[in-house]
């Protein structure tokens, strides 16, 4: 059994846009067979959760140097480049 990966999804409120992103990642990881735990949070909370995460996906600006890979999740909202971003996320999780 592979180790469960933790993905933090950050947006302005931890409610609206991050739910869209979280659901897409959940579906993609299920397909790729990666066990994943997704935590939604607000941008301001990211630094306190960062140490426990394997990956951060965000739809809003974040501070630099979190020590964890950060992927821009705007594609999930605009629909443009969504597949590439999902692929990038799956690959990052497989490597890590």
């Amino acid at each position, binding site marked *: 059994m592979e180790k469960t990966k933790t993905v933090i999804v950050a947006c*302005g*409120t931890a409610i609206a846009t991050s*739910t869209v992103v979280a659901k897409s990642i959940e579906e993609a990881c299920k397909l790729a067979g990666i066990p994943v735990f997704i935590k939604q949070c607000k941008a*301001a909370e990211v630094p306190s959760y960062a140490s426990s995460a394997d990956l951060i996906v965000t739809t809003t600006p974040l501070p630099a140097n979190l020590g964890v890979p950060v992927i821009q999740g705007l594609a999930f*909202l605009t629909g443009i480049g969504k597949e590439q971003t999902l692929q990038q996320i799956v690959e990052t999780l497989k490597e890590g």
Partner: protein
Amino acid sequence: MDAFLTSLKGIIDALGATVLLPVLIFFFALILGAKPGRAFRSAVIIGVAFIGINLIIGLMWGALTDVAQAIVKNTGITRDIVDVGWPSAAAIAFGSNVGLWVIPIALLVNVVMLALRLTKTLNVDIWNFWHFAFTGSLVVAVTGNLFMGIVAAALVAGFMLFFADWTAPAVQKFYNLPGISIPHGTSAGYVPLAIPLNWLIDKIPGLKKWDADPETIQKKLGPTAGDPMILGLIIGIVLGVIGFLKMGTVDGNWQGFIVNVLKLGINLAAVMVLLPRMVSILMEGLIPISEAAREFMQKRASKREIYIGLDSAILIGHPAVISAALLLVPIAILLSVILPGNRILLFADLAVIPFVIAIFGPLTRGNIIRMVIIGTFTLIIGFYVGNALAPLMTQAAAAAGFAMPEGAALIISIADGFIWLPLFFVFLAQNLGWAGMGLLLVLLAALLFFYSKNAKKWEVMAGGPTE
């Protein structure tokens, strides 16, 4: 036949948003091309979310009504309009008669305006169509005319596309978001107010160059003002002490005092955590329909330059916005105490302040002090707008089937109950009826016309790049 129609209408009226909205969402998702299984599941989730939201609103409304009554009785201070927050406003708006129609109507407005080249924005942020329905449902509350409410919602959708286009270059440059615009009800409409205020600050020597450091502010205020749960707990305890103190000092019932205060604290902390979770469930239900709508719209949009319209939530991670919003939380609470004539007890929407100020970022070049000053003025105006709109919002909530506690306080929310646009619409609808709607259409046309004549100048005015 008549009997059949009457009983059908009776059934529809009795079902309410928890059943009716899922049914409509299901068929609408199918029309837009979503798969039946997915459409069905998301329709059911939406019904479930409405039940969850209704439960939490009941808890909050009851707790806040009790303490508001206690405060009036024991201190003579009248704060009998309670702030139930944007999640409640969104649920009321989507659960209203206008909310049932707002998604197809707003999509239609967008398609028509794109085809006529009146806008560059393709608004894929289906979730935030609730802002349009909110104003529409208030218009229905004041006129009793559903059709006028739907027309009002369509007009708000048009105004938001205009604001989104107008502010797009500023937003794209400052937040580094190429191709994005923000047709968001709580943010976009504040630009006309912020421009003159920012100009005024430029004229005041000394104030002009004043700024603050975002990191210090976030470190000092973040743990309390930035955490809704802790904020809810503190507000609950403070309100409880104010409201129930006489229970101890006059009646000698200190046991009752302590129980009441602590219970209120934990109840309001619970609301701050649970209400957003419920809305997140509603959001989950809307995903298939918003994906289908996005594909539907993108297929029909032409190849020319298009902005994708998104939620202003994508802006508010910016350090200047976070910091200015943190500073505005205590200011907003202070305003709710000192503003003469105010009846609003601020609570759930203290978390929404970043949305209110996000659009000031480019205009002030991220200057925190300026954002706080402009934000304070916006809030002061907002309080009076909110006091005026509260009876209508309460009426709209009742019409949408939300359970009111006995002797209920009136309700309001900062988003969008503190915003001039709904009040402006309601005022015109009430006093001029259809002529008011006509006037709004003329105003929108005039704005679009003058903007298109001199787009660059308008965009620079809103904080856009000059080159």
